[in-house]
């Protein structure tokens, strides 16, 4: 898989990162060499092999349907870069 500048820009957009143009070239080279390196996985016969998502066997433990937390507006806002009256605040979002 050969990466190009546009792919890097699209990945950056998806990840909400804005690389300065001078860094794009280096990142592109780095990612390209990593992708070339992982190509070796194509040698492996994976026919009929199920993906391993988690080594934890078993099933999801569940919580009871009880309210145990959540009334902590001040704690939530304490680290916020911008908040007003218990709301988080961001630049206007236009739909």
């Amino acid at each position, binding site marked *: 898989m050969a990466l190009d500048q546009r792919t890097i820009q699209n990945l950056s957009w998806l990840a909400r990162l804005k690389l300065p143009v001078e860094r794009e070239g280096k990142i592109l080279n780095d990612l390209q060499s990593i992708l070339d390196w992982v190509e070796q996985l194509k040698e492996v016969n994976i026919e009929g092999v199920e993906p391993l*998502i988690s080594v934890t066997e078993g099933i*999801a433990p569940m919580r*009871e349907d009880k*309210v145990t*937390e959540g009334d*902590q507006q001040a704690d*939530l806002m304490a680290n916020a870069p911008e908040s007003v009256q218990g709301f988080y*605040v961001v630049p206007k*979002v236009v739909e």
Partner: protein
Amino acid sequence: MYTIKGKTTDWELVIGLEVHCEILSNAKVFSGASAVFGGEQNTHVSFIDAGFPGMLPKVNEKCIEQCVKTGLGLNARINKYSRFDRKNYFYADLPQGYQISQLYHPIVGEGFIEVTTSEGTRKIGVERLHLEQDAGKSIHDMSPTKTFIDLNRAGVGLMEIVSKPDMHSPEEAGEYLRQLRAIVRALGTCDGNMDEGSMRCDVNVSVRPVGETGFRTRTETKNVNSVRFVMHAIEVEANRQVEIYENGGTIKQETRLYDSDNGETRPMRGKENANDYRYFPDPDLLPVVLTDEYIENIRKNLPELPEAKKARYISELGLTPYDASVLTADREIAAYFETAAKGQDAKKVANWVMGDLFAYLNKECLPIAKSPVSAENLGALVGLIGNNTISGKIAKDVFQFMIETGKDPATIVEEKGLKQNTDTGAIEKIVDEVMAANPEQVAEIKAGKDKLKGWLVGQIMKASHGKANPALANQILNKKLGG
């Protein structure tokens, strides 16, 4: 069949709905914060919901149960193995930067909803139901330059119910949505309030010339928040597409917004369409595995669903399919009706509920829960007619008094002296008097002008101040006319 007439050909519609239902539960789907609607901003928010570092989700068992219940109510296959995936995108009210959802292994598979329209009854396919998290709320109107974010709804359990592209008219889509709402309400899994946003609908629409089989490009219209708007959005979107095709254009697969003020759909911002959600299995959560026993236990305890209730009303209570549909569309109406009909003539009770009661409630914009006439009292009123204590006509007056006073009908009949006269001698006397006062009409009836008989009975009832038993009066009159 519903079609849109174009210049060149007739077009049919292909409609699929994606309905989001907020799950009724005490706590959110992956945290212990309250899932109850309302509350001051950001006071129903755990650090998990706000996506703080190192916070981990854990499934609320109630949300699983609600999904299974709903799945059973949709006649659907319950998947004993399901798991969660992350849908990655950035949005102001999505704190984790991803939504936990179920793409690859949803908890509920295929099912159907029976929908009755003017064209008959059809099964509309349900593709799947999956469990996911709701997002928070962005508030745009508190500042000219800022958006305010409240995460109280972030992380509330959401069932996304995806239909098959099985519907072909706005009416059918509207009925599907009504029926779905009736089902989740009957099950108590979602309150179905579209105006509060606890039930939301995205509409997929495409059109094709009648007779064509494949699917053409569809558009998705987001967040249409009432049944009426859904029907209207389908209509305008389908017409928009037809017009484009008729003018030689093509339809772009895109997400659109319904604007109820202007009655149109318009495309959402371009970037929204360029998203790539990068779904992958959520490594913080293990699979949900259900046993047959668990599913059967829920099935056994399911409340009666609208469809079954309707069938029972028809077969056991002798209602017409139409009346049965109306009375079962809403859980509270059905409950009212059943209470009122207990020990009474169900058909007559149905007439009263759908006639006088609905007329009054509609006029006053009252829900049935706020009816001044209790179900027990309405049943008692029908009982008084049935055992000839009062006539149907007097009953209308009694009903009016019941609305005004909330009193039970027997008391009103007693207080107002409205009891029906069943004394044969007394009625005979009135019949004789009326016949004597109207000799010409009596003669005409005897000569075969049967129509006038009703008028004569009316005169008898009037003379008795409405209290004569009409059947008895009729019987006596007939005897005298015949004799």
